[in-house]
């Protein structure tokens, strides 16, 4: 056991300073965003900035307590913590209170407690614990299955609460898995799916099906360029699609051309699969399956989007993809947010001089859209500083994670940084119009005790683990 003196000496000061800096900047921006002259006292606890100050104080105390706990505690109790949080996530579905449309809060008087916030570090601990077993190989099917369950069980429970934003955060663990050996192919498929998803909604399905067909032909050729009978596959597709065209022309374009071509492509791909199987052309088989999967994926996206999602969900996605340019409709929030940030200019309007983030032009101006206040009052310089601080924190955390001897600490460290990064990416991206409007807070910045404490716990457990990196566990 290290002495107390050596514990404090081995704490990473850079991370702690970045953490305090971000909280402080968040707090003064909350003050600016709700500032009015009736309540000028920055310590006024009836106002949100006064409350945030209390929560910051509480977060520091919380951080201190996390540091004085023996680091082995987090290792040994990882599963118990995970289990307890999962139980809370279940209980909140029954006994919880609905806040902002999500049934995710336990209300004890005026004090609210949101289990979803604590699911993040609990999942990180469980994941680190599971993956740190000697001889663990992520490539094994069983390992992957368990890892998926650990990650997506809380995500699913949170999704049932109707808190999509918090559920999406769990996708960020994919980057942890990647660092721990998950095939780059998974990332490739992830990217492919996202790209297909976006294309399905942005371009017409006729164009998309032709685009995919052309891309597939190129890939078929590329994967086996030495194959003499390269013309066979295009011929199969031509032969499969042609009858559909004839039928539709004969019926006077009764069917949607996009649907019809897609159907032809599916038929063609099935024939190609049979052909490749007989000729033992494994590369063709792989490509065929990817192509077939892509086609089925775009069909399901199309179906889900227009038949399952409700209107405001559709319009949010549409807004993100720039499909409807409707400044006073669904894109209104983003438009106002961009106006606020854009109006800041290079140096900003100065502290408390923002006009857009007051008067309720910007919604949720002290929570999800807190970055608007930074942009408006501190300008590009302020944006640069805030983004710079976050990137510095991420860099520092990865650097810390990589210096861990224990896999547990490293995996946990990566989990921390990817969760923080995901919030950072979605939150700021949303305010500048390149991410969908998903209501998740900017770590350490946004107003709210529950999220601040959960980020503090998340971060300080890692600082604690790092402080005892020379111990063995």
């Amino acid at each position: 056991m290290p002495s107390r003196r050596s514990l404090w000496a081995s704490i990473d000061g850079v991370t702690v300073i970045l953490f305090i800096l971000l909280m402080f900047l968040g707090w003064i921006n909350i003050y600016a965003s709700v500032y009015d002259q009736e309540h000028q006292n920055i310590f006024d606890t009836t106002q949100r900035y006064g409350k945030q100050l209390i929560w910051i104080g509480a977060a520091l105390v919380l951080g201190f307590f996390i540091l004085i706990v023996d680091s082995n505690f987090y290792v040994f109790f990882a599963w118990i913590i995970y289990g307890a949080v999962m139980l809370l996530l279940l209980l909140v579905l029954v006994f919880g209170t609905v806040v902002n449309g999500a049934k995710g809060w336990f209300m004890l008087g005026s004090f609210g407690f949101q289990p979803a916030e604590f699911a993040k570090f609990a999942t990180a601990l469980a994941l680190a614990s599971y993956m740190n077993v000697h001889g663990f190989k992520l490539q094994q099917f069983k390992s992957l299955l368990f890892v998926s369950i650990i990650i997506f069980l809380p995500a699913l429970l949170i999704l049932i609460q109707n808190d999509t934003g918090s559920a999406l955060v769990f996708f960020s663990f994919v980057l942890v898995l990647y660092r721990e050996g998950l095939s780059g192919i998974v990332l490739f498929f992830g990217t492919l799916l996202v790209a297909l998803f976006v294309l399905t909604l942005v371009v017409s399905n006729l164009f998309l099906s032709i685009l995919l067909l052309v891309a597939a032909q190129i890939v078929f050729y590329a994967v086996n360029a030495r194959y003499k009978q390269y013309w066979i596959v295009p011929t199969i597709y031509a032969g499969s699609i042609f009858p559909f065209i004839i039928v539709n022309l004969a019926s006077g374009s009764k069917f949607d051309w996009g649907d019809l071509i897609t159907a032809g492509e599916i038929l063609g791909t099935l024939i190609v699969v049979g052909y490749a199987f007989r000729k033992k052309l494994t590369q063709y088989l792989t490509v065929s399956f990817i192509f077939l999967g892509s086609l089925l994926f775009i069909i399901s996206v199309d179906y889900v989007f227009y038949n399952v999602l409700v209107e405001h969900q559709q319009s949010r996605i549409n807004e993100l993809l720039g499909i409807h340019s409707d400044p006073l409709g669904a894109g209104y929030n983003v438009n106002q947010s961009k106006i606020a940030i854009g109006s800041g200019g290079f140096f900003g309007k100065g502290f408390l001089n923002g006009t857009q983030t007051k008067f309720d032009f910007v919604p949720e101006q002290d929570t999800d859209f807190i970055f608007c206040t930074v942009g408006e009052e501190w300008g590009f310089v302020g944006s640069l500083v805030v983004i710079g601080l976050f990137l510095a924190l991420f860099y520092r955390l990865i650097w810390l994670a990589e210096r861990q001897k224990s896999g547990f600490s490293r995996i946990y460290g990566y989990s921390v940084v990817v969760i923080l990064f995901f919030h950072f990416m979605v939150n700021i991206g949303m305010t500048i119009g390149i991410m969908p409007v998903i209501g998740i807070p900017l770590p350490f910045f946004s107003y709210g005790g529950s999220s601040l404490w959960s980020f503090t716990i998340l971060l300080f457990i890692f600082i604690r683990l790092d402080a005892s990196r020379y111990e063995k566990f």
Partner: protein
Amino acid sequence: MDTFSKRKYYVLAIFFGIGIIYLVKLFSLQVISSKYKESATNNVLREIIQYPARGLIYDRNGELMVINKPAYDLLVTPRELEHFDTIAFCNLAEISKEELIAGIKKAKDYSTYKPSTLVKQIPPESFAFLQEKLYKFKGFHVQLRTLREYTHPAAAHVLGYVSEVNESDITKDEYYKSGDYIGASGIEKTYEKQLRGIKGIEKQLVDVHNRIQGSYNEGAEDIPAQIGTDLVTTLDAALQHYAEALFVNKKGSVVAIEPSTGEVLALVSAPTYDPGLLVGRVRGTNYNILLEDETKPLFNRALQAKYPPGSTFKIINSLIGLQTGAINTYTRFTCNGKGSTPIRCTHSHGGSANVVEGIRESCNPFMWNAFRSVINLERKPADGFKKWREYVESFGIGTIVSSDFAHALPGDLPTIEMYNKWYGEGHWNALTVRSLAIGQGELGITPLQMANVGAIVANRGYYYPPHLVREVKGDTVSSMFKVKKYTKIDPENFEPIIEGMRELIANKLTAVAGVPGVEMCGKTGTVQNNGADHSVFTAFAPIISPKIAIFVYVENSGWGASYAAPMASLMVEKYLNDTIATSRKPIEKRMLEANMINPGQ
């Protein structure tokens, strides 16, 4: 050993890649693009409250009585203020520099970004000029309000007035915000909810030059104002004006009611005032002047003065006597004129009187005996009194009949408890409270209540609650006005009383109170008082299907026939005949010119 350590570079590449993309995007938003800066300068949001015009008020014949006129409030939003030429501004806004400084300080204390009123109710003439120059002064803007305007300076006590809300109004009803107007008395108060309409809110985007750029969010968040509902009062404007003219330089009250509906045709409390005095910027000053006036023009005598009814109350006592069987139409009581005890007769009319004569001659000895008989029907005087009191109460006396009067009082009707306290239980009897027999003593009845007694007699036993509004446009008027209320007196018992009242006018008061072509029934009263007697008169006409019941009270003007009866008859004549007969012009002139407040002038 960790074989995937190199992947940290890929992860870092993703982080920094996103960070750089965001910074590029931010640079383009904040530094390169000018689109958003322009949008932002347009974006100063101003919430403009849309004050709806109050509902108009009509008389029963569709003549407009109360309308609206525009006025403008000058508002200041402290945080939008910039250095400006204060002298030029003060000249423009017609205020002193001190007022401006104090006003801005007050506005800042309230809120820096919400507008506060600096100058209230600027009339349209000044506004036109102000509007032209106001663009030079950032942080100031004007807001349209409406003020009341009266087509005639009349009916102040019926219509009431509108004032700014006070703290308690705001606490009671969250609809009201500081600076709002509220009906503070009269119909304006009772029908406040209908008249006020509903305030709206318009969110506007205003540019740096204080010019409105359009509505915010395409007006999606605007709440349109709803204009107030118009009212039709029961008043007959012509009769009201005539009654007020007759009451010039007199103190007292008149209330006229249509017996078949309970609709108040005219209601005057004199001295009255021009309702226009309590409108706009002059309201405060004028209100204080009226408040300090010794003749109490703000006091609504018609609804609140507790007058002893005097001999007009003999109608009620006689009816109770007949109904209880204490007397009948054959009952005669002796009268020794001025020698009668315990109450002397003020008239000399032969040696005895029956009920008809008792009413006609206003015979005090008859009334005393009838009253004593009623009280003595029970073994204990207190029980007899209790019964008598119940009958009186059924006339709507000593209670408030639910209606639409803002400040009506119940008046005073003595109770057993009161007399027990005064005299001791079992130590008082009819003789002790004999003043009640002739409508004096502890009785305090409002003119509205006595006018209603006239309507009850006209209707032979029932009344509709007297009220002031006959129609709320597009809505139904309260159904409580349509419910007949019965007294405890049977219809046949009214006939001898009515006969007495008829004979009084036909035989004795024709000269002063006879209305040509109309058979009117009436009863005079002369109320003893510390100063000069009050002149009282109650009447209804015509005798068959009565159209009007009227009660007139003229303070300190002598006996009933001197002023109250002629004035009542003139009003009846005006209402039923539309004009005053030439033969009656001298009486009319005398009544119009009489000055009872400063008799010498």
